[in-house]
């Protein structure tokens, strides 16, 4: 019996499905979720023209763009929340160097928030889900 067992082996042995590349492992965070800024828009969220034709990225960026008032009330758990200029998960999707272009945690949080919003969940319920899965 091997003494160590990687995550990949763990899942492969169970279900044999392929994991997506793992982003930085999020740590449990004690940070508070931000209050959505009144009148916030998605004007700075990157559009498909800036996403190198990646269908998966375009989908999540478009989804975030549709609900900036929700995404702006979520604290990202990837560690970027302490960076200068960061306000909310929405910040991860803004600007040429938007972290969500490369960060799987930012992307996963965005996708989860988009789905739960479509399912009619409140902002607090979405925050709790993000914390439970990524915190």
């Amino acid at each position, binding site marked *: 019996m091997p003494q160590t067992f990687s995550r990949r082996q*763990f899942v492969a*042995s169970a279900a044999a499905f392929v994991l997506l590349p793992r982003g930085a492992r999020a740590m449990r965070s004690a940070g508070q979720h931000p209050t959505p800024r009144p009148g916030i828009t998605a004007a700075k969220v990157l559009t498909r023209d800036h996403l190198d034709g990646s269908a998966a990225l375009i989908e999540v960026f478009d989804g975030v763009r549709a609900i900036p008032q929700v995404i702006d009330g979520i604290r990202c758990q990837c560690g970027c929340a302490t960076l200068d200029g960061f306000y909310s998960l929405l910040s991860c999707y803004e600007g040429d160097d938007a972290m969500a272009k490369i960060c799987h945690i930012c992307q996963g949080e965005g996708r989860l928030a988009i789905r739960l919003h479509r399912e009619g969940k409140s902002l607090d319920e979405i925050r709790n889900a993000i914390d439970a899965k990524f915190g």
Partner: protein
Amino acid sequence: MKTRLLAIALTLATATDLHAQIRASELGSFTQTIDGTKISMTYSRPRGRGRDTLFGSVKSVRWGEVWTPGANYATTFEVNRPVTLDGHAVKPGIYSVWMVVRQSGTWTMVLDPKVRVYHMSPPDSNATQIRFPVKTHDAPYLDVLTWSMPELRANGGMLTMQWGRTRVDMNLDVEPSYALTMSRADADPYVGVWEYAEIDSGKAGPTHGFVIDYENQTLKGRWHSDSSYFKHFALVKIAPEWFAPGVYDDRGQVYEVYKPELVLEFTRENGRATSFVARDDQDKIVMKGKRVR
């Protein structure tokens, strides 16, 4: 004379921060995160420098001395969440570290809330301190005093100080982020025989068996796998109806909760879980399952 020496020593120690300089006890540190609890120690690291005896000698640490296990300014211990050390509660904060060094019997570990204290001014015993006995052990020679955590668990580890042939181990426990146990009443809606299929590119693969049982106050899952590690895994509740697999090591201890990579989301009908989907870290459905009985 003593005051003058102290002043010189303080000046030299302060200079450490300002100039590149070879010091007898270079500044070091280590940080360890365990389940979101960050443990940090900063200390100057004395070397043996060929001394035959490091403890019980006038040239190093004298018996009965209240000694900082380090050098220069007192070693510091910092945690961002509550922990216990050998069962003694330590609140979040930063402490100076001291040990009462004895020739026989146990030593006394002391955490004092006052920091930035020079080693020649150890604190008197007071009510704000955390004090408890620690045992010393013989160990292979280590020239440079070293604090480390050579053993880690999901909920803690061994905090160790070693210098020369003397080692002190302390058990450090953190507050776990999840409860691995649950009541029978909370577990029952999920217990049963299930089947599931992997989902790849939207298509379901072959169906496999999946058993959820309740053992040692823990909800556990077992599904199609040839791996001994995956014969039984904990289903750790992370949110209402959401569970992540907790992987056991050979000693039966959960060493990782496997999220966000795999989260099982159950659906109930009439109070009983009847189906689930498993989603990966990108919220993609990678498995679907339903209750068989």
